[in-house]
């Protein structure tokens, strides 16, 4: 508690407050623009944090994460085009409200719901992460190997549509992770004599390439100059009014969706999009007025938005405690931590506790900033929708160049970013997901180094690690993780069936 209070004192420093608001504002900007995601927002802002104190940088990134999650709702509500996949369910009721002239009210509901979801999940992070990190103190190479394997089994969740493609993407990521000196003997692998490759592929340029530069190529492919000629800035919100009475009536929905979002966030691979659909579905299930959903019921907007912002705090729990990035945003966030010299695990809550607790406090402040900016600046953020794609495309690519260059002031990293951008573009066009590649790159070295340490300690045998209860539990969770796509498929089928029944008059 003392550490948290100290964290709040640090986070309330004027520069940190300013960065929380600035990060949140930029995040909302990114989230509101269809095609730009939370991953891109956090990834492209990492270089800005180089010159910051660690706490300031992390608070800035926390603002960007929360803001971009919420920002997607603006275009979902006003244009029926979700700014991020996590806001798809918001458009079901948000857009009909806009058509009725209640766009401002829908935005206010989305803002308040996002705030509640974000705050509750941040509180869960504060409560759950420290004890879980203390448990990680008991970990040796065997346990860390099991953690890495658990992280890698998440690949199966990304591969529900095509298991072979998912596994292939994961294997490619693992192979990329082997580039550089081998972790035990220091033998150079796949370096082709390039000194820059001896330390391995730099993670941030690779991630910026996979997620942002590839998106530039996708935008070039789908660009339509007629869209730029149509003036998007003419979209208006109407009066932004917070319907306090209606919000009070839907308090159980807000609470339920926030909890759903937080739990989904903790589960690796299940991100904001799944959380918002489940939150929305549960709101429909519990509602006495099921028929009103899909026709402009503010409760639908609240359910979806509380759930997708609930993911923010939850998804940081496995990242900060065990070093497992559960989704692409937290994978990028891991890069942000490492750049500030922070390593996920118990040390974050001991040696680095002041920074970590300032970050936790910053997450709460970022949610408050989101509430203020969302309510006051909604009409301003709407103008973002008028930014022409012909200008956004070169600007985003230029930011990709800065993002990859400024890590080591190296044009080699820019080349890495571009190579991964092209690779990511073809992956997406061929129906592969980029997320398993990222998991492979991050978790591969962790799995390999710990596996080989286990073999060294146990004279070439892996079996002794199964005497550890932690390894047994992690192995069981890994098996569940492999089975989860089947369970999710079953849930999706059930949801689609119910949806079709609900929409049939």
């Amino acid at each position, binding site marked *: 508690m003392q550490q948290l209070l100290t964290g709040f004192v640090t986070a309330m420093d004027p520069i940190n407050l300013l960065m929380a608001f600035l990060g949140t504002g930029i995040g909302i900007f990114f989230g509101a623009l269809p095609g730009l995601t939370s991953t891109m927002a956090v990834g492209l802002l990492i270089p800005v944090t180089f010159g910051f104190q660690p706490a300031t940088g992390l608070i800035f990134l926390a603002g960007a994460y929360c803001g971009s999650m919420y920002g997607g709702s603006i275009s979902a509500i006003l244009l029926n085009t979700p700014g991020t996949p996590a806001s798809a369910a918001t458009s079901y009721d948000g857009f009909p409200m806009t058509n009725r002239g209640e766009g401002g009210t829908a935005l206010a509901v989305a803002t308040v719901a996002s705030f509640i979801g974000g705050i509750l999940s941040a509180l869960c992070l504060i409560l759950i992460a420290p004890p879980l990190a203390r448990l990680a103190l008991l970990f040796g190479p065997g346990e860390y190997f099991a953690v890495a394997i658990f992280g890698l089994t998440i690949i199966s969740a990304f591969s529900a549509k095509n298991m072979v493609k998912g596994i292939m993407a994961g294997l490619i990521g693992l192979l990329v992770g082997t580039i550089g000196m081998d972790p035990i003997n220091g033998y150079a692998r796949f370096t082709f004599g390039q000194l820059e490759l001896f330390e391995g592929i730099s993670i941030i340029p690779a991630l910026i390439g996979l997620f942002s530069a590839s998106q530039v190529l996708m935008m070039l492919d789908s660009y339509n100059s007629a869209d730029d000629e149509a003036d998007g800035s003419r979209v208006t919100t109407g009066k932004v009014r917070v319907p306090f009475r209606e919000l009070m009536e839907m308090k159980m929905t807000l609470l339920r969706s926030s909890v759903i979002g937080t739990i989904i966030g903790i589960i690796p691979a299940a991100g904001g999009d799944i959380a918002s659909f489940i939150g929305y579905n549960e709101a429909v299930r519990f509602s006495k007025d099921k028929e009103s959903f899909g026709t402009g019921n503010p409760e639908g907007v609240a359910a979806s938005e509380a759930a997708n912002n609930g993911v923010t705090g939850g998804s940081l729990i496995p990242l900060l405690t065990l070093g497992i990035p559960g989704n692409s945003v937290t994978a990028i966030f891991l890069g942000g931590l490492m750049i500030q010299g922070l390593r996920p695990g118990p040390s974050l809550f001991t040696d680095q506790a002041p920074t970590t607790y300032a970050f936790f406090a910053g997450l709460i402040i970022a949610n408050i900033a989101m509430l203020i900016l969302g309510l006051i600046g909604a009409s301003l953020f709407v103008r973002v929708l008028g930014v022409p794609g012909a*200008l956004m495309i070169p600007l985003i690519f230029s930011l990709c160049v*800065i993002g990859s260059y400024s890590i080591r002031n190296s044009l080699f990293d820019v080349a890495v970013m571009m190579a991964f951008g092209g690779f990511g573009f073809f992956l997406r066009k061929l129906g592969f997901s980029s997320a398993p590649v990222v998991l492979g790159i991050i978790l591969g070295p962790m799995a390999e180094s710990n596996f080989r340490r286990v073999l060294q300690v146990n004279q070439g045998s892996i079996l002794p690690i199964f005497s550890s209860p932690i390894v047994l539990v992690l192995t069981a969770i890994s098996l569940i993780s492999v089975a989860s796509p089947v369970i999710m498929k079953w849930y999706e089928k059930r949801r689609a069936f119910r949806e079709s029944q609900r929409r049939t008059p």
Partner: protein
Amino acid sequence: MSKLSAIRFAAAAVIAVSLYAFWLTLGYPRGAAMLPRALLVLLTACAASLLVRGPGPDGVGQTLGIQNRGRVLMGAAMCLGYVAAIYAAGYYAASALFVAALALVLRYRKRHFIAAAALGYPLAIYIVFEYLLKIPMPLPMWY
């Protein structure tokens, strides 16, 4: 061409690269080669499975699905040219040129917006990165 779908072509390319990478690992010590070799064998097996099965029932992978190949190639070439221009002319000049050129290539007509973005963006980057954060941007090679 219809039989050689994009996904089959990609699978064949993966197999070729995997075999080359496996050949490279033959010169590595046993410990260092263990993981890469295992991964390459698995990757080759997965790629072979894709090669045999071809595109899925949803048709994804039949073609690359690029709607406007010319624009993507032109854009990619301009991105490459931009990085080369950074090396030659420095970040700021290259960025102003790149923003204006790509917007014009995409046939955006509002010239005053293009001019504002081309001049305003490098200025904003200078203020944020060089002035406030003290992070230097690439300078021209002749500087």
